[in-house]
C-alpha cells in the first residue's frame, strides 16, 4: 500500500501539484488541437524537463499524456476532427450529439467515462506492477529477448494499414538505432567515418522530428482548412446530464475500462485500437445498436473509457521490463535516463518511492483534468477555435529547433531532427508507421543486448530460445500475432472485393 504515503507526500507539495495542474491544462489543450498529439507536446517539452527534479519532470509529462488522451475527445465532439487517433471512435457518436445541440452533454459523458477508465487503468497498474516486476526479475536474457521479439512483431504488424510497411518501419527503427558504437565491442556501425554519428542518433531529436516537425510538415498541407465548432443550437436544459441518462453507460464504461487496460499492457497497441475494440464490443452488446452512430451516449462512453484506461497499464512493460508500451512511454525513457534512473524490474528496488509518487501524481492528474473538462471543455473548444493555425504551427516549427538543440547542445541533433521530421511526414503519407519506428528504435539496444547475452549463455546457439519454455512461448506469441493480423487483413480485403463486385 505504498500509494497512500505517496499520495500524502504529493498532496503536501504545492509546487508538484502546480506542475500536475499545468500538465492537465497543457495536455487537454494540445490533445484538443486537431493534428497535435500528446506525444508531440511531450517530445517538444522533454528537453525543458531535463532542468527539473526527476519527479516533477516525470509527473509533468505523464499527466500531459493522460490529459492529452482525454483532450482528443474535445476536438472529436466539438469540431468533428479527432484530436488524436484514439478519439476517432468517440467522434462517431460525439459529433452527431453536438449537431443535435448536446455538445456539453456529450463532453460530460466523455469526461466522466475518461476519468473512470483512467482510474481503473491506474489502479490496476498500481496493484499489478510490483507483482509483474517481481516476475520480471526472474526472467533471463533469452526470455527477455523473446519478449522484445514479440514486441517488435506486434508493434510492426498490428498498428496501421499495412503489415509490410509497419514491419519495415520497425526494421528501419532497429537499423537507425544501430548507428554509432557497438556498446559491447565499441566497434563502429553505420558511421561512414562521421564523428557525429559515432555518438549515435539521439532519442530526443528523433522524437521531436517524427512527432513535432513531421506534424508541421503535415499541417502545411492542411493550412487552408479551418477549425469550426459544431453549429447545433446549445440549449442548457438539453445539456444537463442526469443519472438516468448515464446509468446505461456504466456497464459499457466498466467493460471498456478493462478492455483498455488489457490492451494497454500489450506493447505498441495503444489507445486507438482500445477505443475501436471497445466501441465495436459496446455496439455488439448494446440494447439498441441501431442508435449507435447517430448520437448514442453509450457510443461516447465506451471508447472514451477504453482510450484512457490504456494510459496506466501502458506503463507496466516500461517500468517492469524497460519496454515502452506506447510512444509516450518511449519518450519517458528519455526522462528516466537523463536523471540516471535505470528502468526495468530493479526500478522497484532502487526508486520505489519515486514510482509510487508518480502513480499518485497520475491519480491527482486524472481528478484535475476531469474537473477542468467537466466544467470547462466548451471553453477549451472555443479557445482552440481562436488559435490561428497559421501562427501556431510556425511557432511549433521554431520551438522544435531550439528544443532539439537543447537536448545535447549540439547542432548535429538539429539536422537529425529535420531529417526525422521529413521522414515522419513521408512515413505518414506512405502508410508507414512512425510509432513502430520510434518504439523499435528505443527497443533495439535492449533487444540486441539480451540476444547477445543469451547467446553467450547458450551451449547450443540459437536453440536456447526454443529450449526455454517461456522464451518459446513469447516467440510463438509474436509469430501468432503476425499470422492472425495477416489473416484478418486478408479476410477484410476479400470482403471489400466482394462488396465492390
Amino acid at each position, binding site marked *: 500500500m505504498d500509494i497512500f504515503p505517496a499520495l500524502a507526500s504529493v498532496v503536501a507539495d504545492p509546487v508538484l501539484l502546480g506542475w500536475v495542474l499545468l500538465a492537465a491544462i497543457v495536455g487537454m489543450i494540445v490533445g484538443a488541437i486537431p493534428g497535435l498529439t500528446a506525444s508531440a507536446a511531450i517530445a517538444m517539452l522533454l528537453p525543458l524537463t531535463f532542468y527539473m527534479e526527476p519527479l516533477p519532470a516525470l509527473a509533468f509529462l505523464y499527466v500531459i499524456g493522460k490529459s492529452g488522451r482525454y483532450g482528443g475527445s474535445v476536438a472529436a465532439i466539438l469540431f468533428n476532427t479527432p484530436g488524436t487517433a484514439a478519439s476517432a471512435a468517440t467522434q462517431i457518436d460525439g459529433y452527431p450529439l453536438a449537431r443535435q445541440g448536446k455538445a456539453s452533454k456529450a463532453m460530460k459523458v466523455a469526461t466522466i467515462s475518461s476519468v473512470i477508465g483512467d482510474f481503473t487503468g491506474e489502479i490496476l497498474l498500481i496493484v499489478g506492477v510490483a507483482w509483474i516486476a517481481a516476475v520480471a526479475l526472474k526472467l533471463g536474457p533469452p526470455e527477455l529477448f523473446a519478449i522484445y521479439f514479440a514486441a517488435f512483431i506486434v508493434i510492426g504488424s498490428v498498428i496501421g*494499414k499495412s503489415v509490410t510497411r509497419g514491419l519495415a518501419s520497425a526494421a528501419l527503427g532497429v537499423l537507425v538505432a544501430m548507428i554509432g558504437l557497438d556498446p559491447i565491442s565499441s566497434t563502429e556501425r553505420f558511421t561512414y567515418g562521421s564523428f557525429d554519428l559515432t555518438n549515435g542518433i539521439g532519442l530526443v531529436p528523433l522524437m521531436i522530428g517524427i512527432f513535432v516537425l513531421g506534424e508541421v510538415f503535415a499541417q502545411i498541407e492542411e493550412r487552408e482548412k479551418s477549425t469550426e465548432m459544431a453549429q447545433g443550437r446549445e440549449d442548457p436544459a438539453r445539456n444537463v446530464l442526469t443519472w438516468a441518462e448515464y446509468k446505461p453507460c456504466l456497464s459499457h464504461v466498466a467493460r471498456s475500462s478493462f478492455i483498455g487496460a488489457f490492451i494497454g499492457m500489450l506493447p505498441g497497441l495503444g489507445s486507438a485500437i482500445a477505443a475501436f475494440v471497445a466501441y465495436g464490443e459496446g455496439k455488439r452488446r448494446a440494447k439498441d445498436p441501431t442508435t449507435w452512430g447517430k448520437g448514442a451516449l453509450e457510443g461516447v462512453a465506451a471508447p472514451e473509457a477504453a482510450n484512457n484506461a490504456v494510459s496506466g497499464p501502458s506503463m507496466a512493460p516500461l517500468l517492469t521490463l524497460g519496454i515502452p508500451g506506447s510512444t509516450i512511454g518511449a519518450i519517458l525513457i528519455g526522462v528516466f535516463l537523463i536523471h540516471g534512473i535505470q528502468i526495468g524490474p530493479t526500478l522497484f528496488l532502487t526508486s520505489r518511492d519515486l514510482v509510487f509518487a508518480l502513480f499518485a501524481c497520475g491519480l491527482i492528474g486524472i481528478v484535475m483534468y476531469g474537473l477542468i473538462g467537466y466544467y470547462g471543455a466548451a471553453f477549451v473548444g472555443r479557445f482552440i477555435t481562436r488559435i490561428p493555425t497559421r501562427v501556431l504551427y510556425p511557432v511549433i516549427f521554431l520551438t522544435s529547433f531550439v528544443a532539439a538543440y537543447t537536448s545535447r547542445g549540439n547542432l548535429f541533433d538539429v539536422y537529425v531532427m529535420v531529417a526525422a521530421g521529413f521522414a515522419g511526414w513521408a512515413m505518414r503519407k506512405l502508410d508507414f508507421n512512425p510509432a513502430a519506428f520510434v518504439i523499435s528504435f528505443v527497443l533495439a539496444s535492449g533487444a540486441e543486448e539480451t540476444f547477445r547475452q543469451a547467446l553467450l549463455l547458450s551451449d547450443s546457439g540459437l536453440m536456447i530460445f526454443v529450449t526455454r519454455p517461456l522464451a518459446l512461448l513469447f516467440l510463438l506469441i509474436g509469430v501468432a500475432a503476425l499470422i492472425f493480423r495477416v489473416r484478418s487483413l486478408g479476410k477484410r480485403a476479400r470482403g471489400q472485393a466482394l462488396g465492390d463486385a
Partner: protein
Amino acid sequence: MTSESSPAPRVVGLALILIGIGATITSLGISLDQYGRWGARLFPLAGSLALIVLGMLELRRSEGPRLDRKHWPAVAGLLFLSMAYVWAISVVGYLIATALAAPLALWIFGVRSVIGLSAAAVLCPGVYHLVFFELLGVFPPLGRWFDLLDVIAR
C-alpha cells in the same frame, strides 16, 4: 499483406530493397569482435535482410491510390527553410538566424501582414533566447562567421 492498397508499392518496395542491400553491405563490413564472432554484425544484418524481404513483398502488391502532390512545393519550401535555418544558426548564430526564419515560416503558412512578420522577426529570437539560453541556462549555438551575442556582450 494489407487490407487496402497503400500508395506507390513499386517505389516503396524498390527503396526498401536498395536501403536493405546498402545496409547489408555495410553490416558485413562491421568488424568482428576479438574472438572472431559476429556479435556486432548480427542485429544490423537482421534488420537489413528484413528490409530486403519486406521490399520484395511490397513489389508484389497492386498499385494503390495516387498521392496528392498539390502541397509538395510548400513542403519542399519548408524542408529547404529547415535546412537553411540550421545552417544559418551555425554561421551567424541563433538570434539572426531565427530573426530570418521566423517571418519566412509564418509566410509559408500564409501570414502576409508586414507588421506581423516584422514583429515575429524581433519577438521570436528574443523570447526563445530568453527562455532557453537565459532562464534555462543552455549554452547558445554561436555563429562561426558572426554572432550578434558578441556585439551585445561588448
